[in-house]
């Protein structure tokens, strides 16, 4: 066979990772239970700045991918993946994937003094930075070029479906002359919130009209940095999807053990047990796929792009399936606004479009594994 050889992967969780998980989980339990998320999503500010301060700076989660010499934790993708699992389990509206993964990876790829300064700010949790790119942008897809530099760093254009733009302090803007850090409150910048399917990851259109920013990289460097960030983002998104699926399975099992109909617990009916057992199998498999992607990214494995594509091609579907089963098996309760199941369904479905659909990633698998299309 001619596909790349499989590297030995560490698919377990280390003790440090479990400690990190415990810290994040207890923070989310205290500040971001489903009642708190439901209460916030319709307000002007779905993000909770205090939650972000403790997560980013207190626990140090924002700097996991940032080297210690730039003020980060010098940890890696395996640890960031654990944070994303927990954020997925809580359907937390926190700009972690956008600021602490995507923007951070782009800045790490720029290797300029300006990007290093910004990384220090992000790692310390003092600022939130998001790439002004559509959330659907996938690794391996052509990069859009909607922003023009009319000379001397005066940027104009607009980008749709930018995730977490509303809570960002800094936008990373790809223009024809390179990559720019543009303060979100700079003159000529406006952000128009969109009504998003996923209430927990707000979207906005970013308009630039002669906005000025700091140039971080030339076009070639910028494009390479963005490509690397999209790969990491897609690989780590699998862990968020795992967390979503895990919550849906756990909640549904708990509900069906206690909900009685026909004078028996609903969970004692074989038709229902088999559905849940299959879902458990899917979640156990998604865990292996997501861990493989995180480990391959952490070690810079040669076959990381294939492992990431496999994880995305698999985990997207599992998260959506788990959320759909969660709604269905909760019956009428699952259709209500009060029950949090819909938050997970919306997050899971939006995640299945984010950073490339399963179909896009299967196409990448075809390339890497040399299974050419007809």
């Amino acid at each position, binding site marked *: *066979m*001619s*596909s790349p*050889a*499989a590297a030995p*992967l*560490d*698919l*377990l969780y280390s003790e440090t990772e479990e400690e990190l998980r415990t810290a994040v989980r207890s923070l989310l339990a205290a500040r971001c239970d489903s009642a708190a998320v439901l209460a916030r999503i319709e307000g002007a500010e779905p993000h909770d700045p205090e939650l972000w301060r403790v997560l980013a700076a207190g626990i140090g989660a924002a700097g996991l991918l940032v080297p210690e010499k730039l003020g980060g934790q010098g940890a890696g993708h395996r640890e960031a993946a654990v944070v994303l699992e927990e954020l997925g389990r809580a359907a937390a509206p926190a700009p972690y994937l956008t600021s602490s993964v995507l923007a951070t990876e782009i800045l790490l790829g720029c290797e300029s003094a300006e990007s290093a300064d910004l990384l220090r700010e992000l790692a310390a949790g003092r600022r939130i930075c998001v790439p002004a790119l559509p959330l659907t942008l996938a690794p391996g897809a052509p990069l859009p070029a909607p922003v023009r530099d009319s000379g001397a760093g005066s940027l104009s254009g607009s980008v749709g479906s930018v995730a977490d733009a509303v809570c960002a302090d800094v936008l990373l803007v790809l223009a024809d002359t390179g990559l720019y850090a543009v303060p979100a409150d700079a003159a000529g910048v406006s952000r128009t919130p969109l009504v998003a399917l996923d209430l927990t990851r707000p979207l906005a259109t970013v308009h630039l009209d002669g906005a000025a920013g700091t140039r971080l990289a030339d076009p070639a460097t910028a494009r390479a940095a963005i490509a690397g960030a999209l790969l990491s983002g897609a690989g780590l998104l699998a862990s968020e999807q795992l967390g979503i699926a895990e919550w849906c399975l756990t909640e549904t*099992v708990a509900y*069906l*053990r206690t909900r009685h109909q026909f004078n*028996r*617990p609903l*969970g*004692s*009916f*074989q038709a*229902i*047990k*088999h559905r*849940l*057992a*299959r879902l*458990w*199998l899917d979640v*156990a*498999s*998604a*865990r*292996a*796929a997501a*861990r*493989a992607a995180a480990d391959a990214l952490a070690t810079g494995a040669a076959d990381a792009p294939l492992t990431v594509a*496999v994880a995305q*091609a*698999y985990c997207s579907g599992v998260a959506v399936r788990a959320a759909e089963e969660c709604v269905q098996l909760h019956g009428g309760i699952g259709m209500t606004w009060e029950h949090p199941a819909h938050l997970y369904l919306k997050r899971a479905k939006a995640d299945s479009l984010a950073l490339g659909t399963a*179909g896009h990633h*299967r*196409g990448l*698998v*075809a390339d890497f*594994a*040399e*299974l*050419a*299309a*007809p």
Partner: protein
Amino acid sequence: MTAAAPTADRLLARVRELLAAHPPATTGRAAFLSARFDAGLAWVHYPEGLGGLGAPRSLQAVVDAELEAAGAPDNDPRRIGIGLGMAAPTILAYGTEEQKRRFLRPLWLGEEVWCQLFSEPGAGSDLAALGTRAVRDGEDDGDWVVDGQKVWTSSAHTARWAILIARTDPALPKHQGITYFLCDMTAPGVEVRPLRQITGEAEFNEVFLTGVRIPDAHRLGEVGQGWAVARTTLMNERVSIGGMRIPREGGMIAPVAAAWRERPELRTPDLHQRLLELWVEAEVARLTGERLRQQLAQGQPGPEGSGMKLTFARLNQEISGLEVELLGEEGLLYEDWTLRRPEIVDFTGRDAGYRYLRAKGNSIEGGTSEILLNIVAERVLGLPAEPRDDKDLAWKDLAR
């Protein structure tokens, strides 16, 4: 030997001593296997004197890898899989000292092949409903006389011994009246008939037991405790089915991926999408199995083990089905319908049609997928059992 459990380093030193004293190149197979057993390197977690050293089970892989690298002969685990995977751990757990000394060595050397007389025409998934009778002839230590019919017995035509469960008290509820025996396949009254399957082969057998005498010394465990003993066997059976290590694009996906690459004229967009989905699922299944092995090696076995057999059964069926379709006109043909009685079951060899038909058994043998889903639901997820009215009823009063 010291009392402390041997470490990986000490085991490797022992392997090298074994290889030095019995160079594989110049030592006969039987002699080498005997020496390996006596060195305690057959099953390192077994006790000393019984092929082991009381070492942690996870260290077996270290020993196996070192011996394989040195080109040492193995005992053909596929031919004696039931003995190695099921009879041996059960004899170790429940056997008397005399039984362990009598049976484990020839079993490991492959001198004595074992088969498993569990399933019956009327008791498959509901195995505890079995009706084969064992009646004692005379007083407490008298022989047992066995009558009944077993089915799906692989290796019965080559086996010297069988693990057998039979009903010893029909007045008790079905799980309580069963006793476990070691049955001599050459005893008078044992008749083995080939059972031809959908593949055309007779890889399994029916076994008819008519007045078969089994001495009480060949009873394994207490009278009436056979179900507990059988559960040890069944647990080991599922572990041995799900635990194989495969490389990326190994197993069933390999031939279909190869056909895709080598024969562009067969490609269609629909087949491409389905192939990619299955390729991804096969890779994820490989990673899930790898994760399970890493958990086992750390001594924290995860519940994923219950799932691997379910996953592989479904994938094998879907992949082989796709492969038949991919082959087009060739997929309409079949290699050979001649009745054969293979000694070894070849799941992945032969042509696509055989693989497609043989894979149908993967979701039935060793516990049907439906039963395994119940096990996952009840033991992993903690869901309640369905109400049952058969558990406390005497076996003789059950509907049949």
